């Protein structure tokens, strides 16, 4: 019987010719990731277990991105714990301060992930790297500790849902609108334990930033991973960043899927997810009058260069509405520098936005933009659970950078074509 992309990668890393959905197997890992929230817990478990070596100091990555720049003493202690451990074990890829970015924007950019690899990360949005045709998934700190020591992890081989993409996105519509639409369609547990495999001729109109955003939110449909078929766009992206050899896996013609959906990209509209679940989606055109207090444009979902450009295209020559706080968070130092060099910061500052250093910060209600009781935010982040960005009586609406920027200008949930000149500054 044929295998899906994910099943092929798992089989190859488990020393097997084939695997079947539902089997439990141990596989070799190419990379183990943790952040400032999850690494210290992993380090505690690692030391409690009596481990004294890493499987490979080049394949363990620590990214201090959640509560950094350190928001308080406890957060500073977490980073110190991770930093001391990284020094003791001479971990090659330790990121903090001047070289740190939001982990799932940083790793692909730095060439740390490649097609066909298996990556586990103690962060649920580790599924992002499926955009490159890797099998990557979020795990807990104990899995991270076990991975750091043994270079292995256990997995239940997932079955898959196939999304065949066709057509081309309309202007002001992005990968974020596609994945929100899909989550609205299948629900927050629609892909529970499963792979979401993206394929079809429509891929050719999706940039790597679109794909990274879509794979990132596979977890919001309950998915184990999201994975894209590797094409010329992927290979061009990887070629600029990765020098080591890698393997491209393609699903077998006779691979079995639990479900197959055909998605016509030309029919996707600007979409917003209402509180308090990412599945509560509706077209922005049907959002009604929802006044807002804050806009956040950034995160591992939408803090990349194209996101900055999309926001700037809407904000150019316009002002953020009175009473609205608009926070822009370029996800990595490179994206920050590129945005600055392209003049996007001038546009943001003239519009009245504030520009944050790279951090996860407000996305998880950490810092740098916390909501008070009764406040509403439009955010390009990935979760809108109760209390996610602050007070339990606050609300988060998930949308694309273009919609978030248009909402900042209007002071309510809005889409770019509601602005003069069709949103083109």
């Amino acid at each position, binding site marked *: 019987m044929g295998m899906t992309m994910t099943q092929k990668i798992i089989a190859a890393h488990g020393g097997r010719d084939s695997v079947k959905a539902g089997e*439990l197997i141990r596989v070799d890992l190419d990379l183990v990731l943790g952040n400032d*929230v*999850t690494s*210290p*817990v992993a380090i*505690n*478990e690692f030391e*409690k*277990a*009596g*481990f004294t070596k890493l499987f490979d100091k080049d394949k363990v990555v620590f990214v201090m991105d*959640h*509560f950094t720049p350190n*928001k*308080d003493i*406890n*957060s500073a*202690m*977490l980073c110190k714990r991770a930093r001391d451990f990284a020094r003791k074990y001479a971990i090659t890829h330790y990121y903090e301060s001047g070289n740190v970015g939001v982990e799932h924007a940083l790793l692909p950019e730095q060439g740390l992930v490649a097609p066909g690899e298996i990556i586990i*990360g*103690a*962060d*649920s949005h*580790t599924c992002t790297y499926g955009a490159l045709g890797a099998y990557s998934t*979020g*795990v*807990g*700190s*104990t*899995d991270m*500790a*076990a991975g750091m*020591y*043994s270079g*292995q992890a*256990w997995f239940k081989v997932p079955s898959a849902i196939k999304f065949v993409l066709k057509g081309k996105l309309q202007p002001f519509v992005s990968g974020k609108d596609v994945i929100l639409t899909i989550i609205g369609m299948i629900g*927050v*547990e629609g892909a*529970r*334990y499963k792979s979401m495999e993206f394929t079809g001729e429509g891929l050719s109109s999706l940039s790597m930033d679109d794909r990274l955003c879509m794979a990132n939110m596979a*977890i919001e449909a*309950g998915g*184990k991973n999201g994975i894209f078929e590797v094409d010329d766009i992927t290979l061009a992206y990887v070629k600029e960043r990765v020098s080591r050899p890698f393997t491209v896996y393609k699903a077998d013609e006779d691979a079995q899927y639990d479900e197959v959906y055909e998605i016509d990209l030309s029919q996707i509209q600007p979409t917003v997810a209402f509180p308090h*679940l990412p599945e509560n989606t509706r077209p922005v055109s049907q959002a009604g009058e929802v006044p807002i207090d804050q806009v956040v444009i950034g995160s591992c979902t939408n803090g990349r260069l194209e996101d900055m450009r999309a926001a700037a295209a809407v904000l150019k020559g316009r002002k953020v509405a009175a009473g609205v706080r608009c926070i822009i968070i370029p996800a990595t130092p490179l994206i920050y520098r590129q945005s600055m060099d392209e003049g996007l910061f001038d546009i943001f500052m003239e519009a009245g936005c504030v520009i944050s250093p790279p951090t996860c910060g407000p996305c*998880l*209600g*950490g810092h740098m933009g916390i909501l008070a009781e009764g406040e509403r935010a439009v955010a390009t982040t990935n*979760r809108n*659970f*109760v*209390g*996610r960005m602050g007070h*339990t009586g606050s609300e988060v609406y998930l949308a694309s950078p273009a919609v978030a920027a248009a909402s900042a200008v209007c002071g309510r949930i809005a889409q770019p074509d509601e602005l003069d000149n069709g949103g083109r500054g």
Partner: protein
Amino acid sequence: MKVKGTVFKYGDNVDTDVIIPARYLNITDMNKLAEHCMEDIDAQFSKKVQAGDIIVAGNNFGCGSSREHAPATIKASGVSCVIANSFARIFYRNSINIGLAIIECPEAAAAIRQGDQVSVDFAKGQIVDETTGAHFQAEPFPAFLQEIIDKGGLLNSIK
């Protein structure tokens, strides 16, 4: 092993942000974190919960973040078992890895009520609602996972 306790019942999609809000994740002592367990969905939980008590919930329990702090604080609260219609996958594997007892049993998850006295016999996979007298049978874990559980968690199993 057998456990018995009072039931705290919740609905579908109980996410890790309400189990343990991220604003407390600068704390790594699970016993301290337990003071905030379930705080954003049930502010009284940490005051009322007693050793042995049982959480019963609907679909997709533990969805969202990978934070192991979620099952770890539930365990540190004294909860002896979580019974749900279904679990989100990262929460499921974290629970196996750290030794929080979890059981997928749709019939039990649907029938058991808030405040019921429930006992669980893990070896037999038997759940009894002692308040109503109803019996439920859960599927056993696959041998691969039972071995991790029997060895006291993932790290003990790979030593």
